[in-house]
């Protein structure tokens, strides 16, 4: 997690700007993080195992108090080039390889706005039901930090491109479900800063400006959330939205989607807000959920003990290892960013035609999809699953267009197809099975041409090799006629689904690969595929991949 931890801090580096000994304070922070990681493999793991209880129990005991939560989300746009120069941005590039005099802030250079940024901002503004500012402008936000080349960030201050919108969210069924509408205060365009790479020894830091100038949209919510799960679902819905709109990959691990959460607690009935605490460094929605609920509990406890004066306006970091928030920095008065209008850029003027065209081109958004699926009679569980990923939703919709039964199509997609995707680490767009063949398969089972069992067999062939249902049925007929393979074929479908058995296999593999486990926990999450492969090998290919991955995921994170 160390790398991600760094990113979390650096992204918000402006908050360090006014304090003294800035660099070294940060160095300390990163060291403490490193040591936490070191313990993580042994001792901390056990503590975590003890701490983590069933999800419901995690919800803070807030009787008599209510939490007020507002979120600032930064979404990195995947435009071809940066916001104000023609440099590309590719996550993970070698440091300082995608930079130019403009994004390095050389003397004499000037920003030139990438029009895609405006287009994406308008799309998101529309999707968030915002009012658009037909004329907005850029401003300069000043602070000194080595990752900020110009000494100011080009942002929008008093006239953001979009304001006063809302977003609709369906809470997950396992958290009790329910529909919520959260207000959006504003959406504005700005540029990202670079990042600092701290040396192992902590004696120096290096500046990587690859990310400097990458376009961001900052989305500020109204303080409408009341619990960790609401906040996490708000963020998840933002992620779905930007992915559906095709404006960002919304990847939290890469920092393409970053959330800063403000939490305060007040006695129910009181109109005045409690002291606001900002939480940073949450790398997943589940971490957001846990971090916020932890913070609420902490504040409620202080309130109920009459120590509400011990709640300070400060920034706290979520530490995954400890499952706690820690003080990062107390606020030293209000920062003065000395905003003023950016004189190097003309105003951003939107025309009605431009907005109308983008409006017409908007895809069906997650909320509309969910309502449509719900009307088809699908369960909320199915609805949430299918509408979660735009590619899955597209696949589902395409198979419906070919006449597939919604419930059956949903079952196939959520069951065997999804398991296959997880196991092979593929996205639904990468498989050989087409929505048409899925609908054919469903039809063939429904009309009795083949049994469900044969259907499953055919499905795996289709997923792995492609082809058509028709030709595979013919092929199977031939094979069955020869009576050579049926036994072996059948044995291939003896699948281990017993979680205890699979858990044993997972434990065995984890124990046999301590080095990879450590790397995984250090942030190399791609290793999950390696572990899955090993377990599958151990089970001689018989482990149910869905169950396997579920158990493996939990075990890898050391959650239980």
């Amino acid at each position, binding site marked *: 997690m160390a790398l991600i931890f760094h990113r979390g801090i650096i992204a918000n580096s402006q908050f360090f700007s006014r304090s*003294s*000994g*800035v*660099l*070294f304070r940060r160095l300390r922070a990163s060291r403490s993080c490193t040591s936490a990681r070191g313990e993580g493999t042994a001792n901390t793991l056990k503590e975590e195992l003890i701490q983590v209880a069933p999800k419901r129990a995690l919800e803070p005991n807030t009787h008599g108090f209510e939490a007020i939560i507002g979120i600032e989300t930064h979404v990195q746009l995947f435009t071809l080039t940066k916001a104000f120069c023609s440099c590309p941005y590719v996550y993970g590039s070698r440091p300082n390889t995608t930079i130019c*005099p403009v994004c*390095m*802030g*050389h*003397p*004499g*250079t*000037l*920003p*030139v*706005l990438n029009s895609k940024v405006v287009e994406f901002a308008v799309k998101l503004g529309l999707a968030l039901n915002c009012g658009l500012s037909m004329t907005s402008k850029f401003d*300069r936000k*000043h602070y*000194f930090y*080595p990752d900020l*080349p*110009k*000494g*100011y960030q080009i942002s929008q201050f008093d006239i953001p491109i979009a304001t006063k919108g809302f977003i609709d969210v369906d809470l997950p069924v396992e958290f009790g479900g329910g529909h919520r509408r959260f207000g959006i205060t504003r959406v504005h365009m700005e540029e990202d800063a670079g990042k600092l790479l701290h040396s192992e020894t902590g004696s120096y830091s290096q*500046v990587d400006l690859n990310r400097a100038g990458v376009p961001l949209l900052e989305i500020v919510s109204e303080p409408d959330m009341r619990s960790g799960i609401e906040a996490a679902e708000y963020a998840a819905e933002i992620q779905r939205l930007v992915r559906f709109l095709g404006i960002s990959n919304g990847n939290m691990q890469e920092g393409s989607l970053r959330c800063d959460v403000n939490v305060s607690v007040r006695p129910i009935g009181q109109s005045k807000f409690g002291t606001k605490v900002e939480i940073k460094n949450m790398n997943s929605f589940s971490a957001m959920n846990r971090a916020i609920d932890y913070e609420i509990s902490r504040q409620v406890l202080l309130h109920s003990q009459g120590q509400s004066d011990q709640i300070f306006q400060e920034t706290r970091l979520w530490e995954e290892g400890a499952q706690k928030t820690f003080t990062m920095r107390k606020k030293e008065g*209000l920062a*003065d960013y*000395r*905003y*003023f209008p950016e*004189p*190097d*850029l*003309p105003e951003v003027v939107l025309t009605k035609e431009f907005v109308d065209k983008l409006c017409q081109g908007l895809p069906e958004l997650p909320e509309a999809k969910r309502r449509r699926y719900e009307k088809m009679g699908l369960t909320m569980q199915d609805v949430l699953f299918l509408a979660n990923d735009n590619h899955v939703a597209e696949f589902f919709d395409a198979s419906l267009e070919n006449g597939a039964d919604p419930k059956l199509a949903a079952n196939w997609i959520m069951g065997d197809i999804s398991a296959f995707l997880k196991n092979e680490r593929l996205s639904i767009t990468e498989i050989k099975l087409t929505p048409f063949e899925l609908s054919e398969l469903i039809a063939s089972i429904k009309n009795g041409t083949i049994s469900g069992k044969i259907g499953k067999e055919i499905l795996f062939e289709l997923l792995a090799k492609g082809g058509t249902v028709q030709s595979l049925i013919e092929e199977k007929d031939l094979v069955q006629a020869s009576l050579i393979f049926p036994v072996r074929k059948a044995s291939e479908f003896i699948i281990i689904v017993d979680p205890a058995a699979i858990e044993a296999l997972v434990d065995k593999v984890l124990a046999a690969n301590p080095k990879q486990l450590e790397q995984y926990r250090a942030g190399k999450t791609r290793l999950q595929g390696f572990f899955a492969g090993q377990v599958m090998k151990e089970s001689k290919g018989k482990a149910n991949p869905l169950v396997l991955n579920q158990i493996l995921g939990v075990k890898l994170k050391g959650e239980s």
Partner: protein
Amino acid sequence: MPPPPVRSPSRLLLCHCRLPFHISPQTRLPLSHNSSVRRRFHCSAVSAVSALSSDPQIAPTDLTTTPPSSHILSIRESLLSRRRTAADVAGEYLDRLRRTEPHIRSFLHVSETTMREAEEVDRLVASGKDLGPLAGVLVGVKDNICTAGMPSTGGSRILEGYRPPFDATAVRKLKEAGAIVIGKTNMDEFGMGSTTEGSGFQVTANPWDISRVPGGSSGGSAAAVSAKQCVVSLGSDTGGSVRQPASFCGVVGLKPTYGRVSRFGLMAYASSLDVIGCFGASVIDSAIVLNVVSGHDRFDSTSSTHEVPDYASFLMSTDHFESTPLKGLKVGMIRETIGDGVDVGVISSIKAAALHLEELGATITEVSLPSFSLGLPAYYVLASSEASSNLSRYDGVRYGNRATVDELNSLYGDSRADGLGPEVKMRILMGTYALSAGYYDAYYKRAQQVRTLIRKSFKDALEKMDILVSPAVPSPAYKIGEKVNDPLAMYAGDIMTVNVNLAGLPALVVPCGFVEGGSAGLPVGLQMIGSSFSEEKLLRIGHIFEQTLPNYRFVPPLFLELV
């Protein structure tokens, strides 16, 4: 010693006979569209003006007074006719530069490749290929304009040794037109100052009197053209930094409309006011340079897409005009610029210049710009505010001088404390203050409101008048050190010019007379202000004014002495 000033009015009259134009026929011919009938000025009318134009006591020094001809066109002509090679021309300028530079110190860096580049031009001439409009022309470039591979410091120690990885768009265009960058000229640090005394490296002297300042901030560029160390030069004008030194050094200085010339590669001082301008020994030379550097640039969003007319070709045919070529031209003399606080010699030169315009057919009316006096404080608030932001990037992290310390705040503090000069620090402090929470409305916002008023008052005045005229500076060049400890007096010197930047308008300064001082008098420049993108008109008027002005000889004594 320069020859003693000519004192006899009767001898002065002799020179009036030499007024016709001196553009060589070869260059004029292809551009002449009108009839070839040459019309001369009515001599009596001109001589009447000359009696008023300046005090004969301090009149120019040489009897062979001629209107200035275009150095650019004469270089081109001699290259095309093979009378001279570009290497000859470069050799001549470099030789003069070497001899004058110890006195004037206008260059921070002199290119080592000038001769090589001149030889390249000669090969091009030999090959018979088309020559760019500035082939073989030696250009001085103000040090805050980026030149690839050549130091560009903006006159600041914090950028000592910094070599930009790219050419400013204006420089790129000059090079594409065949120009040779002879070196980087001295300036007040980042353009903040009016004397070059604010340079982090050296003080430039005025070629008219080396005990005096050349003006600033583009003092090096003005002095270099005045002393013929280069043919033309680029400067930048944020609050008068081209026009004031042009007036002090007796050269033509052009501040184009905001956005006419790309700012890409110009180290930003106050982004909403900065303009790249140019200096030349004649209006034609300035026009040819403007032709080359103007136009929209995709690297500068504030550069204008307004069409670029051929500023120079228009001037070629001016020898065909009638005896009153400015007939019908409405000229407004800005009342606020010829009153209290303005040197009497300057006022009389400007009034004489106005009379000359009248002789040419223009009608002169006094106009008042009520918001004029508000321009100075508004300018200093806005320019300082933008400067405090623009100069944030000089932090020692990525380029330039970095203090050797082991803690981040000291890295910033010490690098900037060591690298930036006192005037720059003062303006950063003022600007930071003006933008601070709680003060923003009282300073920055209010100054912007004043700016709107000033824009409007200029617009109104320029609806009634074709151009406005005023002195470029309230005084002639003053002594080095005279105002160093009185920044307010120095700022007050910008009163004539800052309003024009606030309004974003073009202005041309043409030498128009002399006041007493130095061994040969000190030049005074007339500022002509036009509406946005009216450079063509300004250059035409300036050209006629310059070509018809009696006793037009703005050659500094230092040059006569050394050459």
